[in-house]
């Protein structure tokens, strides 16, 4: 079986190709083509020499929806909502995330007030109907909208997560009357209480719906024209994949999927090499994504935001900071050296790219002290100019008497590292995890260059660098299974009398989950189901999602599971009564995936060395040997300082650290001489 994974980033499109007959894994990068993204995807595959006619699987990580939201380029969305609640989106939660600035503005709603239409219907908090929906009112709205150019629409009624009949009835009429429109309703996107977050998630879905559908149909057309006959799968924010057809219906599932592939790949690698607690550190040009993985479980959350707007579908819990290789160092009015959040981006890029940038970036700092070299070409295309990097860093030196170029450059890197360290503390220490219990998995173009310095600050003893760290996300797309999350609001006190309906409810959800998988073409034998429930102590506002065994309606057993989960997460258990607020079923459909082959390079370590260069570490200049990663022999051990170069990335091993090549070519960096 032949398969290809493609990840579209802001600057580069990465592709990974795998043939399970030969066990061959191939990698390529091509410049992204934001104007015709589907074309860029095909170009990246061409560079890999992929023959689509003989390819069986294609998995794709996309950022088209995310970018449309960030750049506010989505479709015009109309909203039909409950009378009295037309301003739910604009009112939002009223909080202010930026303090001490009188000119801060609330994030703008995606829907202008003129496009919000109220309907006199009302469902109450117990699911009963106070005022029934009048179908004629919907028909009138439909005929009014027929006069508008086809756009997108979201039907958002109160308490639809409990009683969706009004939303469904409205959608049936609207879909029939407006066949060219993208239409969804809030309960089908997220059947969960809290109208602001639910409505907003549905609106985001509609906002990026037409664009995503257009892109996917263009991509499918191009691929079919080259003879591809398999399914097109998309990476979802939940860390699973889903078919293009499903993603076209629920494009909001892909909104935070960019970094998801890397997390999936890290979990895969951790399983292969037997390291079960991981912190991923994915550093690119403009941003860095970190994620904490305990016991190889995907950490899921539904409380993330895109550009200030909540998205409440299940997503991998990833913390992003606006700091990357392109982050600019500057001196603020208080005479303090700062790095980011402004970035040189792809244009002009860091000063050393020679494309007109003059301000020093993290990449320039690395080049100025030898951690990068002008002999390297980033992604094989961009040449680096050392003197331009030094000139840029000189701008900082000019401000501080106490610094010279090497000290300023190391300082810029240390400050950037401090920001990453903060980001990792937010997902570890702040949540009750000790980072020392985790290994750091470093990838992305700039990750392996800074990983050890981050590990030092957090006292992490073990750093893992996968092969081709720059293509790790694309690889992650290929090793992910199909995943669907089904959710239903179901309130019940944790007493046997109220749990009678539980099993029936789960069975119904599971039936729906199985048939959705069948629709995606997965044989029943490859599908597994996992139940869980949102539970809380009565009186608490937020629920905790607890995994449940199949067929358990025993209140004592369920309570024990909840108490334990609560204690793990929040550090205590209470004697209060417990309630269930939602039921969830996660369906996983297993797919064929690549196997990382054993690292087979043999020979002398010396044969892998390709020279040496002067590099600064902690104010000292060292002569550091440089190795080609592709020629490192199996089980090789090198004491730092050392530099290991490969396509698209550089791994830095400072003095007092050592590195060993692992069984599938991964690098293990550890503290201490040996």
């Amino acid at each position, binding site marked *: 079986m032949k398969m290809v994974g493609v990840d579209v980033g802001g600057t580069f499109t990465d592709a990974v190709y795998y043939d399970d007959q030969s066990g061959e894994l191939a990698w390529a990068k091509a410049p992204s083509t934001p104007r015709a993204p589907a074309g860029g995807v095909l170009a990246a595959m061409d560079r890999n020499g992929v023959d689509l006619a003989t390819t069986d699987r294609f998995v794709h990580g996309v950022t088209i929806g995310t970018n449309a939201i960030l750049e506010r380029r989505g479709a015009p969305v109309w909203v039909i909502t409950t009378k*009295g*609640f037309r*301003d739910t989106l*604009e*009112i939002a*939660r*009223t*909080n*202010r*995330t930026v*303090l*001490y*600035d*009188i*000119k*801060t503005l*609330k994030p703008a709603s995606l829907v*202008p*007030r*003129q496009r919000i239409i109220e309907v006199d219907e009302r469902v*109450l*908090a117990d699911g009963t109907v106070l005022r029934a929906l009048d179908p004629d009112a919907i028909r009138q709205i439909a005929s009014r909208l027929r006069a508008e150019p086809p756009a997108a629409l979201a039907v958002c009624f*109160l*308490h639809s997560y409990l009683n969706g009949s009004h939303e469904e009835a409205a959608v049936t009429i609207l879909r029939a009357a407006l066949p060219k429109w993208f239409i969804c309703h809030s309960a089908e996107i997220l059947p969960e*209480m*809290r*109208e*602001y977050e639910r409505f907003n998630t549905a609106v985001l879905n509609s906002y990026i719906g037409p664009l995503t559908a257009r892109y996917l149909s263009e991509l499918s057309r191009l691929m079919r024209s080259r003879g591809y006959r398999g399914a097109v799968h998309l990476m979802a924010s939940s860390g699973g994949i889903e078919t293009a057809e499903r993603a076209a219906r629920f494009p909001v599932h892909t909104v935070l999927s960019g970094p998801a592939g890397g997390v999936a790949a890290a979990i895969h690698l951790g399983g292969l090499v037997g390291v079960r607690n991981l912190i991923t550190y994915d550093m690119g040009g403009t941003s860095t994504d970190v994620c904490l993985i305990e016991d190889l479980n995907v950490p899921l959350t539904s409380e993330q935001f895109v550009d200030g707007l909540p998205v409440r579908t299940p997503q991998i819990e990833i913390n992003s900071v606006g700091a990357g290789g392109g982050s600019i160092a500057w001196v603020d*009015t*208080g005479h*303090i*050296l*700062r790095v980011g959040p402004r970035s040189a981006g792809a244009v002009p890029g860091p000063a050393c790219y020679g494309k007109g940038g003059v301000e020093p970036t993290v990449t320039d700092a690395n080049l100025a002290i030898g951690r990068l070299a002008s002999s390297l070409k980033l992604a094989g295309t961009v040449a680096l100019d050392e003197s331009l990097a030094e000139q840029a860093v000189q701008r900082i030196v000019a401000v501080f008497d*106490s*610094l010279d170029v090497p*000290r300023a450059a*190391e*300082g810029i890197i*240390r*400050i950037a590292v*401090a920001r990453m*360290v*903060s980001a990792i*503390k*937010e997902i570890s*220490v*702040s949540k*009750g995890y000790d980072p020392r219990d985790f290994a750091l998995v470093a990838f992305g173009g700039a990750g392996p260059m800074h990983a050890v*310095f981050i590990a*030092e600050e957090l006292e992490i003893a073990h750093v893992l660098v996968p092969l081709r760290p720059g293509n790790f996300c694309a690889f992650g797309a290929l090793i992910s299974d199909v995943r669907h999350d089904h959710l239903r609001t179901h309130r019940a006190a944790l007493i046997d009398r109220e749990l009678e309906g539980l099993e029936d409810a789960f069975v119904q959800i599971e039936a729906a989950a199985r048939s959705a998988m069948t629709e995606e073409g997965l044989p029943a034998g490859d599908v597994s189901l996992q139940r869980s429930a949102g539970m809380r102590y009565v009186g*608490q*506002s*937020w629920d905790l999602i607890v995994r449940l065994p199949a067929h358990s309606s025993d209140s004592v057993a369920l309570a024990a599971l909840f108490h334990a989960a609560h204690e793990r*997460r*929040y*550090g*205590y258990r*209470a004697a209060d009564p417990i309630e269930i607020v939602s039921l969830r079923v996660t369906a996983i459909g297993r797919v064929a995936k690549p196997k990382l082959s054993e690292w087979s390079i043999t020979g002398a370590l010396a044969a892998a060395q390709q020279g040496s260069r002067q590099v600064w570490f*902690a104010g000292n200049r060292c002569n550091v040997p440089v190795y080609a990663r592709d020629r490192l022999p199996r089980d090789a051990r090198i004491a730092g300082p050392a530099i290991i170069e490969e396509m698209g990335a550089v791994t830095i091993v*400072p003095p007092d650290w050592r590195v060993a090549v692992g069984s599938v070519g991964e690098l293990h960096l550890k503290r201490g001489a040996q």
Partner: protein
Amino acid sequence: MNNAIDPAVDPITLEVVCESLIAVVREMRASIIRASYSPVIYEMDDFSCALFNARAEMVAQSNDHPGHVMPMPWSVRCAMEDFENDIHPGDIILLNDSYRGGTHLNDVTLLYPVFAGDRLVMLPAVRSHWADVGGATPGSYSGLSTNIYQEGLRMPPIKLYERGQPNKAVMRLIEANMRLPEDRKGDLNAMLGAVRAAEQRLNKLFGKYGLDTVLECLAINLDRSEARMRSRIRTLPAGTYVYEDYLEYYDEGRFDPVLMRLALTIAGDGVTADFAGSNPQVPGVVNSSLAVVGAGVFVALKSTLDPGGAVNQGAFRPITLKAPEASIVDVRADAPAGAHGEVRKRAVSVMLGCLAQVAPDLVSGDLCGTSFPNSMGGRDARRNRSYVYYEAPAGGNGGFAEADGSSVYVNVDFGNIRSIHNAESLETDMPIVVEKSELRVDSGGAGRMRGGLGLHREIRLAGEEAVYSVLSDRAVIPPYGVGGGASAAPVGVSIRANGQDVPLLTPGKATGVRLRRDAVFILQSAGGGGYGDPLEREASRVAADVSAGYVSEDCARSAYGVALDHEGRVAERGTSNLRAQLTGAIVRLPVVADEFSPYEGIKGRHRVLRMRSATAQRLGVLSNQLVELLGRHPAPLRAWIKIDEGAPADVFPLDAFGRQVLGVAAGDAVRLRGIETPIAPGERRRDPGAHEIGSRIRRPII
């Protein structure tokens, strides 16, 4: 890696250590959220953490509520004064005294002295809103308290732990004086967990970088924040700038505004905020401490002059505060102090009024000016338990040079608080139905940049009898506009029963109003003030506001002078005619110097503008009506018309302070603009259904 430090800490270590200290505060916050049980913390984020050095200076915080953390140094100082040399490892100090750096009594503060050997080096602190601290009403606040004893249990700095040993007597005393004592124990445990976590982290930091290095970094960081603030202040023209505004007090049911007066002196790189002339304290919920007022002063200065950058005590150093003792801005026993939010916000208002005179591009129109906390409690028969509804709906923000103010968005002094709940959560948890929750049309002050809109929220009681209370301000005297911008709509509360909307007798303030099933309370939060002359707003933007429904067609005509055609497009001719007409209708009269005190009131003080009845008639204003005068300075001077046939004819008599507010001299012409209010000074709201008993207003159950 080598962490050895040069004697003069290098800029990189400095940044890394400071970042680490903020991370300590972040960890404290996470620890509180993890352990807490109260929706005030879970849903609203109403708590704050910070680190203090041994000189009681705040050295680190992290996106914490400015209204909490900025007054905290006063508390820390008071505690250190009280215990002097009697603070030891293992001591934990508890306090909530509104007179000594506290805010309202609900905000309880825990201080945890951290020692290196026997040297006190740092104090992590948590200030957290407890849902109840005793007092007259559930929730411990009410708009009509007359002394602090009605507001709850007052705790001066006391040792909850002494050398590691808990003082059980203190705990029992607290439990005996608060509602739901079990929950209070939980709140306290959450706070204890946070400060203990902070101690551990700090010790590690000291171990890694050395205590002296960390302390030196802190000292440098404070100095740098100070230098940064001073360099910003230095850009302002030196001089003294004055402004005045009001809080809304009812003296035995009669409206009696109290005066807040500020003289802001900018001298070189420092400022002095002198509140001389502010009202003596009154037996009503309009007083607060200088600590709280200082927070307002700081927030206004920082968020206009120097947005961004670290917030710590260094940035506060250039500010000197002065205030008369036992006044509304420096309250003493035993006056009520529950209105800390309103007093802080009014301090922001007078600061903006002064700053508008020196940096008009940096300020905005007045903010909605009140936190508007509402509560309702009762018993839910269906679920067989008690419930408390609590929301403090945000209002509008002022317009500013570049943009319209945001609508229904908490003000800059209020932190990252979520001020309302989702309707679905509320309806699920208690017997109420949210009938409506929408933007309040025409509530934003008109201006070249419009003020943000307030919220209109209608909530129906679907259960049996319940009790409703509210503590608000800006319910009579609306937020002002600047640069010719108009006032916003004030807060409104009414109660609908049997199809009739009845406004509160004392606008914005009520204690224990009893509601019956199907009564609806209607909350209208205030808008933000306008910025710049509304007649200069681009007509197309007015048309867009009308099309979106933010502004009514009537208001477009009357406030903006914009006429629209039947398709909602700007009618160019009609608009220029209307604008010419409105410009022509502006009334201006010359000012004459009159140093006779312009203030009247019962216990309060409000400015009166004396004029003959003939003049009033000509200007179209009524006796006792609120008006504003617009002079050279951007912010207006408010006054109430007093008909006085002895007043000079066809001029505005103004004292020196009034002239200074407007930036005018005798002989200059100033403009007068009328403002509608629901009630005038000295007036009791006429309500046929109400009857008085003693000094309290009661009314039948609605």
